[in-house]
């Protein structure tokens, strides 16, 4: 089949290694979207990824580029150190909600507010996956986890944190968008957002963060398909999708 052409295959920026993620966990999809973006923008050989502590801690085995592994929540600080030392490198962090929004809240706010020219891929699955399903800052009201067995009580734990909206209020220019990967259509949108974020960085424009709503079938106690549905029905109403901020909005955005 000489003139057969491959219209979909594993991107170069991913290794062949099979991930440790649970069946149907959308971490895998998000990895691929990042890798495809690096391929298409031809950035792989300039890229340094920063792994979080979370289920994606081993992501450096799956990405085919240089990597650093951060302490829990500190990926944006490592990224700052890398980017300020070698501005020619493309630096991204890949962080879960516990990592970025809980223990890493200060580094999140300040790396964004300084306008570090880095890209944060923020994987919001409303739970602590790796440690076996504890409450995250993004856990929804009444959602049951192992540390809120009666469901998240907003009068005790407050309401979930909307990271994209929170950071979008900062004056320093940035690109911030929330996407989801629960359906092919949304995956395609997510891909476009992630690619756009890396493009801004390649142009040396601004800080960029893409919040990706993701599933954790294992700790949600759902099957992979049920998990997609749960995400759509429960997360999207609280975490509205869309572009929250662009550098074009300018400083007073």
């Amino acid at each position: 089949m000489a003139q057969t052409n491959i219209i979909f295959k594993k991107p170069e920026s991913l290794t062949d290694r099979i991930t440790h993620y649970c069946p149907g966990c959308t971490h895998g999809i998000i990895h691929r979207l990042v890798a495809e973006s690096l391929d298409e923008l031809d950035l792989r050989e300039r890229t340094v990824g920063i792994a979080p502590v979370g289920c994606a801690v081993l992501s450096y085995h799956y990405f085919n580029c240089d990597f650093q592994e951060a302490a829990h929540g500190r990926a944006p600080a490592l990224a700052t150190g890398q980017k300020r030392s070698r501005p020619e490198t493309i630096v991204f962090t890949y962080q879960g909600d516990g990592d970025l929004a809980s223990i890493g809240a200060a580094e999140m706010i300040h790396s964004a507010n300084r306008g570090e020219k880095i890209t944060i891929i923020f994987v919001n699955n409303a739970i602590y996956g790796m440690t076996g399903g504890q409450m995250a800052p993004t856990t929804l009201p009444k959602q049951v986890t192992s540390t809120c067995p009666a469901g998240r009580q907003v009068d005790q734990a407050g309401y979930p944190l909307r990271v994209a909206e929170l950071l979008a209020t900062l004056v320093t220019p940035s690109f911030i968008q929330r996407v989801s990967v629960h359906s092919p259509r949304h995956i395609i949108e997510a891909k476009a957002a992630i690619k756009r974020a890396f493009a801004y960085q390649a142009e040396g424009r601004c800080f960029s963060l893409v919040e990706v709503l993701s599933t954790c079938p294992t700790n949600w106690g759902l099957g992979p398909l049920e998990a997609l549905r749960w995400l759509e029905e429960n997360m999207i109403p609280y975490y509205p999708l869309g572009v929250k901020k662009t550098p074009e909005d300018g400083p007073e955005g």
Partner: protein
Amino acid sequence: MPKVLIERDRCKGCELCNAACPQKILGMSKEINAKGYFCAQVIDYTRCIGCRLCAISCPDVAITVRAHGVRYNLFEY
């Protein structure tokens, strides 16, 4: 005719591809693979439109899609 190839031992049997396929021509095999999962398979090659949605939905990059000749994609990806 487009051709969807599912790498048996990468598959974790999550069925996301099944759900994604507009032609509903994917299913799950009855045998478990090396990793102990029932893996996805194509039920009816003939009706595949090469839309790639199965591959796009696969968390484990287990799917490759081939096609003959030039194609016009339905979406930018």
